[in-house]
């Protein structure tokens, strides 16, 4: 995705000082230094930091001077007090202080005046130091707190808004907000550096590119580009080369002014920080603003393969690291002041010994730092809080395995420790019921009794929020006559009373099967937890990369993180995001360390290699060897398949498209229907594809459709209802998604079974009998058929061109076997031509070369003369049966004789056998 075209902010600049805030060396009398303004959220954002040569030098000097001043004050203070101590020690007065501390005032008064003077002087220096520290620290301001209500009115025209500089004077101080104080020192230095760069090279204006150049010399920014695999030095060279020479030569007294772009960037970076809920405007916000503002930089980024999402995700990575640290500090502080015994502050709670033996306290575990931080789950948290605020008592999180339902609840436990939850959840414990402890070693009736005990405990304690992970495990545990009372019924009976708040989780299937029809469904408010989208998953992976890098001593490039999420979303369907991506990154880290050693960079290639190893799908980038092989695919395939140029071309093109990923990712790689009489090479071509593209004939899933001539065959293909792993087709593809699916003699299958493949060919997916979706998008589907063969042969004998035959076949003959919508879903329907004598001769050569290979293994050499091939072609050629009679001819005329010769000892190792005219075999 390219960067959005942004509308310009209405930044107003003081006309008197041209936005610099200074006229000469003095503050501008018109704007009093508040040189730039922007009306936003019903207040005037003001920039009052003069970016001029003089002011920057002054600020630099002030920075150095402040340091000198601090050090001087420390030295003076220590000097005074150390001297003071030394003098009272030497005068012997120290003994009065040590012997009776209560007499200190008297002892102090008794000292010489000079000594006391030294002490008080030291005190003045200490106070001055204190003053400096407080004053310097107080300078930093904060970005406004994000206000959800003001989001909508931010851009809308408002009453009292200003659009002209003349109106700025009318704005009172209470409606002004100085934004430059929210910029970090680092961001200010970057602005200063940009100015100095423009000044040094005599540019009349400080442009966005100058700021970008300056930003690249900061560690945090160069780290961002290292993650993107771009060295910042090279980028700086690119930018400086493209800047060109200044528009005019300047004398040394004129200074660069802020360009309109840069004025926009100053305010845009503040807005970026506001939108991202940051406390300060740091170099990362400047980077985002500068790229969004400058079309040149956007082009540069585009050339370097950095798109908007990529840049935003890497910036978010830098932010996540800071945020995690702040969260850690906040959690540890909150944890230290929270009770560890499960008692609330008002001590209204009751001890819950019975509950404790069947549960674990998640808030306590969170206090002890057992949980990872929960990232990018704001939407689900908000939904839970909405239910809580709305007076709801029970929430059930429904989503597939591995999407992070438990992590959401762990995140909630953290929020509870920090008291960052609605009042109803504050000062409470989140307790997870252990279903295995509840059911272990007891009968269903015993489990119900235990559950009643637990519920009473919770109701009495009044500070417990119950969490039941995989609540469906409780459904179906029944007691009483004929299983009349279910554990789940008891649970719903107690939950209905609304004495306490409950959170439960389950999967979609289990919810549909067990919860939706049970009494529990009335009790719970359902919240769907969807699989994360790729950007969210990237953020989660980024949040966990730090630990992984530390553990494996490697460094992750952004491309590696992105690739792990993209590939796992596409190829690993057994686990959901972000779980699958985390698994891949962790393996890629170990793989890189073992391959490249410590302190090496994990790139997209290593991640792709891990995914390739796991799935067998070639996802690494195409190498030179492979690309030359792909370009000569037809040649390679023709070594095995004789003739059939149309079919080979069609297949080779499809494979090339698939490998460079120019294809629809929601369908199989290709769907082909091979038509033709027997023995012309339909199956052989399929085997060749499996060998050439999938790396071996065994990577082919072959289903003989003649075995599926009635409707019951459906259950054999997709599995019997409710039984897992019984579908021949679905299981084969689930285990090896990257495969060639050969449906042999498809015309023999029941039409209802063919309907099953409509969805496969169109959407690349099929649902098995247990409701699991099987992915066919990495398979090539080839169906072979003899349908209409006799018609084709008749037409051929009548001398009609093959294209015309195919046309007639599609519109007439084939309709007896296949419905039009079925035929329409094939990417290519290829009519295999009948073989001619010349083809048969070549096939004989190929077949004989296989025999020669077998003999070579025994140490014998087979020499095939051309006349022998002519002879074999003449005896093995039958236009109706294709190449099959040749196999028989070869067996009878060559292989049988060879076997006899070997058994009778006529040929030995190192012998040469010549296959000559009339199929004669002679030993030389």
């Amino acid at each position, binding site marked *: 995705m390219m960067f959005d075209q942004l509308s310009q902010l209405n930044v107003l600049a003081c006309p008197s000082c041209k936005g610099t805030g200074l006229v000469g060396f003095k503050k501008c009398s018109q704007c009093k230094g508040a040189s730039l303004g922007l009306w936003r959220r019903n207040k005037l954002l003001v920039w009052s930091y003069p970016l001029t040569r003089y002011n920057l030098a002054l600020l630099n000097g002030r920075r150095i001077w402040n340091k000198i001043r601090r050090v001087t004050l420390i030295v003076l203070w220590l000097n005074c007090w150390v001297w003071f101590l030394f003098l009272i020690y030497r005068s012997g007065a120290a003994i009065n202080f040590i012997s009776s501390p209560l007499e200190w005032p008297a002892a102090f008064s008794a000292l010489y005046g000079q000594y006391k003077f030294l002490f008080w002087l030291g005190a003045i220096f200490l106070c001055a130091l204190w003053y400096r520290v407080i004053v310097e620290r107080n300078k930093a301001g904060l970005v406004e707190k994000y206000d959800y209500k003001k989001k909508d009115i931010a851009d809308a025209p408002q009453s009292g808004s200003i659009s002209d500089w003349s109106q700025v004077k009318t704005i009172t101080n209470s409606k002004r907000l100085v934004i430059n104080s929210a910029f970090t020192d680092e961001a200010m230095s970057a602005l200063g550096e940009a100015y100095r760069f423009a000044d040094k090279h005599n540019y009349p204006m400080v442009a966005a590119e100058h700021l970008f150049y300056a930003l690249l010399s900061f560690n945090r920014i160069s780290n961002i580009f290292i993650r993107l695999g771009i060295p910042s030095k090279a980028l700086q060279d690119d930018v400086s080369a493209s800047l060109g020479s200044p528009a005019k030569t300047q004398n040394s007294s004129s200074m660069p002014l802020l360009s309109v772009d840069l004025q926009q960037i100053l305010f845009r970076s503040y807005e970026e920080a506001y939108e991202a809920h940051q406390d300060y405007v740091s170099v990362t916000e400047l980077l985002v603003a500068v790229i969004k503002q400058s079309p040149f930089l956007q082009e540069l980024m585009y050339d370097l393969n950095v798109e908007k999402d990529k840049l935003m995700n890497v910036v978010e990575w830098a932010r996540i690291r800071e945020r995690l640290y702040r969260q850690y500090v906040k959690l540890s502080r909150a944890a230290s002041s929270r009770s560890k015994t499960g008692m609330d502050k008002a001590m209204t709670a*009751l001890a819950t010994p019975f509950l404790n033996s069947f549960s674990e306290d998640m808030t306590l575990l969170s206090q002890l730092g057992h949980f990872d931080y929960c990232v990018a789950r704001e939407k689900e948290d908000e939904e839970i809080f909405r239910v809580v605020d709305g007076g709801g008592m029970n929430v059930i999180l429904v989503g597939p395995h591995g999407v992070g339902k438990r992590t959401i609840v762990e995140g909630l436990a953290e929020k509870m420790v920090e008291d960052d939850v609605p009042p109803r959840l504050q000062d409470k414990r989140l307790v997870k019921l252990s279903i295995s402890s509840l059911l272990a070693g007891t009968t269903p009736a015993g489990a119900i009794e235990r559950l009643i005990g637990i519920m009473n405990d919770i109701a009495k304690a009044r500070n417990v929020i119950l969490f039941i992970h995989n609540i469906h495990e409780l459904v179906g545990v029944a007691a009483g006559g004929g299983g009349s009372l279910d554990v789940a019924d008891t649970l719903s009976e107690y939950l209905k009373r609304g004495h306490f708040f409950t959170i439960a989780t389950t999967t979609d299937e289990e919810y549909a099967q067990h919860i939706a029809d049970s009494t529990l469904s009335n009790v719970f408010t359902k919240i769907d937890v969807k699989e994360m989208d790729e950007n969210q998953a990237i953020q989660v992976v980024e949040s966990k990369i730090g630990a992984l890098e530390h553990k494996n001593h490697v460094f992750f490039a952004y491309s590696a993180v992105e690739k792990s999420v993209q590939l796992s979303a596409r190829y690993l369907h057994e686990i959901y995001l972000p779980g699958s991506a985390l698994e891949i990154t962790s393996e890629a880290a170990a793989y890189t360390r073992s391959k490249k050693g410590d302190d090496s960079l994990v790139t997209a290639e290593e991640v792709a290699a891990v995914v390739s190893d796991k799935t067998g799908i070639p996802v690494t980038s195409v190498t030179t060897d492979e690309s030359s092989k792909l370009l000569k695919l037809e040649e390679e395939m023709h070594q095995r398949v004789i003739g059939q140029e149309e079919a080979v071309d069609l297949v080779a093109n499809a494979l090339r498209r698939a490998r460079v990923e120019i294809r629809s990712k929601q369908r199989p790689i290709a769907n082909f229907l091979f038509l033709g009489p027997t023995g012309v090479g339909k199956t052989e071509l399929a085997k060749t594809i499996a060998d050439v593209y999938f790396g071996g004939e065994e990577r082919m899933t072959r289903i003989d459709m003649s075995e599926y001539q009635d409707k019951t065959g459906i259950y054999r293909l997709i599995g019997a209802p409710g039984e897992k792993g019984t579908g021949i087709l679905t299981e084969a593809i689930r285990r090896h998604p990257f495969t060639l699916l050969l449906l042999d003699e498809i015309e023999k299958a029941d039409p209802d079974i063919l309907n099953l493949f409509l969805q496969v060919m169109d959407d690349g997916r099929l649902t098995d009998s247990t409701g699991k979706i099987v992915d066919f998008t990495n398979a090539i589907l080839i169906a072979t058929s003899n349908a209409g063969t006799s018609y084709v042969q008749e037409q051929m004998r009548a001398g009609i061109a093959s294209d015309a035959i195919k046309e007639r076949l599609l519109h007439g003959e084939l309709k007896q076997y296949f419905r039009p919508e079925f035929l329409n879903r094939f990417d290519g329907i290829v009519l295999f031509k009948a073989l001619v004598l010349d083809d048969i001769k070549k096939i004989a050569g190929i077949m004989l070369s296989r025999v020669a290979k077998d003999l070579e293994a025994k140490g014998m050499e087979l020499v095939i003369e051309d006349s022998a091939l002519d002879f074999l072609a003449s005896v093995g050629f039958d236009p109706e049966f294709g190449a099959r009679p040749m196999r028989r001819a070869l067996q009878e005329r060559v292989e049988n004789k060879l076997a006899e010769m070997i058994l009778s000892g006529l040929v030995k190792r190192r012998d040469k056998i010549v296959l000559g005219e009339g199929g004669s075999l002679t030993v030389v």
Partner: protein
Amino acid sequence: MLYLILQRLFFEALLDALYFPFWWYTGGVKHAMFWCADMFQVGNKNLSPGLWLKNIFVPMFGQYDIQGRIISFLMRFFQVLGRGFALLIWLIFCLALFIVWLAIPAVIVWGLVGSFLPAAKI
């Protein structure tokens, strides 16, 4: 320009030295006030007599019988008193620190003047 900057820094430092005592009783007082208020808040959060007062009729440890209620009420009553008293002490301590802030310059001036006077012959 260097000369101008040095000159300005020198004057700034001079003004800063003169502004420092003035700041102590303006911006500094504000700072000290917030600091002490924060400290008091921490004490209030930990002792929280208000929370105990709010729950004065709520039985402790889930003892809803009449005896439990009576004992809880008494216990809470004394807790509120004890915690309130402790918070008062804490408040006095925080205020004392604030007063120390206010007194520091006066004490230093008094000490400096005193050090020039002939020893009080105590």
